[in-house]
């Protein structure tokens, strides 16, 4: 038996680029996920391009055609093409807005949870790869693919979203639209990855990791939607200007100031006055009020809001990633540190 092994031992070849091998191993283990991701990107891009071009064109021509024939259709546009177009827009927006949850579910369950559950993570750690470097690869390779994928979707979605303004009354501050139209899309997707990895490490099992990752990521996106208006200073105007806010402004609150100088929010008094100054004056005097005011985000706040939220969400992602490393280090002999 021993003679079978009587071969000369080939000298170990030092190959640079161990990181490349590690990255390739991540892709090898998650090849089906990679294919799914690519297919999803292609499908989303194709649908959004269709909606932007032929979808919009056909729907808008159809609506105009109906309007010419029937005056009622001008006010209540409908028809199969419009419904197809609006479905395409709504569906792609929904998918892009909830991609972070999908990423989190995959990262928690397939990327980390399952590997810890069935022990293949430990298999990797007893090859020449330390747990810390294993985790780094698990974060870096998907992060690259997720960033590139979502970054490519953003401009396409913006094209589609802005193009649909006339037909669908899309708003820049719509929660799903906002999450799909700018840099926050990448930030949330990366956050989903980090949260998923952390959930996988904490639970160490596939299904709990999936549940925890999705729940936490849902909470994070919900909090983002909730506190988005406070992420950049708002604009407050008083007097007649508050009755006619700029076009496409996101109105947050409006109210009145009493003669005693008390500011009352969420009050619609005198808002029915037309924007002529005289009409407003008489209404205010009649109600013992000094002034009316309104707080809003003009459309020009889109990018400041996007970038602030991106920063905050990326910070959360970094926090989750750091927590993952700390957790792994505490559990295993992750690096060269003495036991």
């Amino acid at each position, binding site marked *: *038996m*021993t*003679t*079978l*092994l*009587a*071969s*000369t*031992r*080939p000298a*170990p*070849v*030092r*190959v640079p*680029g*161990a990181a490349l*091998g*590690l990255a*390739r*191993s991540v892709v*090898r*283990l998650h*090849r*089906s996920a990679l294919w799914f991701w690519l297919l999803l990107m292609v499908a989303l891009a194709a649908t959004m391009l269709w909606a932007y071009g032929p979808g919009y064109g056909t729907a808008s021509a159809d609506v105009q055609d109906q309007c010419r024939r029937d005056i009622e259709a001008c006010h209540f546009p409908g028809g199969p093409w419009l419904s197809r177009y609006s479905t395409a827009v709504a569906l792609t927006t929904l998918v892009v807005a909830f991609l972070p949850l999908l990423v989190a579910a995959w990262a928690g369950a397939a990327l980390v949870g399952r590997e810890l559950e*069935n*022990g*293949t993570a*430990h*298999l*990797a*750690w*007893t*090859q*020449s*790869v*330390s747990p810390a470097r294993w985790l780094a690869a698990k974060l870096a390779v998907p992060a690259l693919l997720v960033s590139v994928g979502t970054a490519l979707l953003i401009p396409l979605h913006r094209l589609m979203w802005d193009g649909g303004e006339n037909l669908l009354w899309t708003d820049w501050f719509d929660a799903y639209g906002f999450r799909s139209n700018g840099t926050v899309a990448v930030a949330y997707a990366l956050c989903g990855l980090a949260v998923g990895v952390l959930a996988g490490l904490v639970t160490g099992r596939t299904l709990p990791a999936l549940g925890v990752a999705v729940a936490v990521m849902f909470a994070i996106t919900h909090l983002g939607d909730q506190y988005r208006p406070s992420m950049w200073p708002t604009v407050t105007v008083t007097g007649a200007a508050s009755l006619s806010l700029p076009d496409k402004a996101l109105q947050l609150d409006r109210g009145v100031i009493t003669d005693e100088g008390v500011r009352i929010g969420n009050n619609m008094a005198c808002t029915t006055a037309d924007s002529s100054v005289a009409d407003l004056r008489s209404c205010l005097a009649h109600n013992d009020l000094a002034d009316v005011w309104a707080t809003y985000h003009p459309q020009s706040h889109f990018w400041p809001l996007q970038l602030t939220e991106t920063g905050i969400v990326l910070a959360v992602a970094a926090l989750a990633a750091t927590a993952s490393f700390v957790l792994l280090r*505490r*559990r*295993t*002999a*992750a*690096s*060269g*540190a*003495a*036991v």
Partner: protein
Amino acid sequence: MNRDGEGTALEAVGLGKRYRRRRGPVLQDCSFHLPAGRICALVGPNGTGKSTLLALAAGLIRPTEGTLKVLGTTPARARERFAYVAQAKPLPPQLTVAATLRLGAELNRARWDREAAERIAYGPVYANPYADPYGEESGSAYGDMHGEAAADPVPGVGPGVGPNLVPGVVREGGLHPRDRIRSLSGGQRTRVALALAFGKRPELMLLDEPMADLDPLARRELLGALLGEAAEHGTTIVMSSHVVAELEGVCDHLFLMGGGRIRLGGDPEQLLAAHTLLTGPARDLSGHTVVESHGTGRQLTALIRTDGPNSPPTDGWETAAPSLEELLLAHLRNPEAPDLFTEETGGTGTADMTDVTDVTDVTGEENARP
């Protein structure tokens, strides 16, 4: 074999491990020393911490107390130099056998020996029946990495083995490169897991129940491969098992685990030489270290340590050498028996017995009463 004593494969001092969900510690105050180059059997009943000890050595978990040095350093620093095969033989189920070996190559770039891995996975003869085992995905990296080694046609074919094996015939027991891991049986997975370990060309192999799932033929073949590896490269091999017979005659070092520590350690022959099986009329055995004694009426059979001043006793006892299985079972049945380590001192090879605990008389008397 590397028996010069210059290297230490494993060294534990006061090692302890406690899991959160369990009440008691799995390992407690466990100290031992394993010289490099040994083929070591780690035996003991289920749940005595064999797997925990191996996982600690592999750096997968951290000890709650004490230290464990692997190849003279921490498990983390020694990571590239040892191989570990877990009891469950975890492998990515979605990969093929060939892809799993490629994974091994990617994760062990500096030391991967493709030939050694394939010999274990695809059968003992390297004359591979499949022209290109890596199929359409043949990685260019391999051509670069293994240049000559891969081109070498039939290395390592021993005389008398090669001629009757015609290339193109599926090897008995060997695996097909395109088999999916999830379609493999337990024993076949063990083969792939061992192939990964061999491919790493480690200085130390930590194998948790490596033979449990294997059929007798595969067991013979893979055990032979392990012995060959050890003989050729001085690889230290630590194999855990709860079947003593499985490893008898193979190992030249033995650790018996029990009560969260190593209770017997050393060369099996020296361990056997340190014990005597006595049979004779029942009588007082105080003054001797009695591991186990049981009597049938006036007849007494006892296993004692031959380390006392007048050991073994000559007066009227029939003495016999115990078998390894008898020795181990006697210790397992009697947790009170003191620990024993035989160690080689210097280059002389003489045994140096060390009683770790010195409660011999008490246990001796207690055990002597039928």
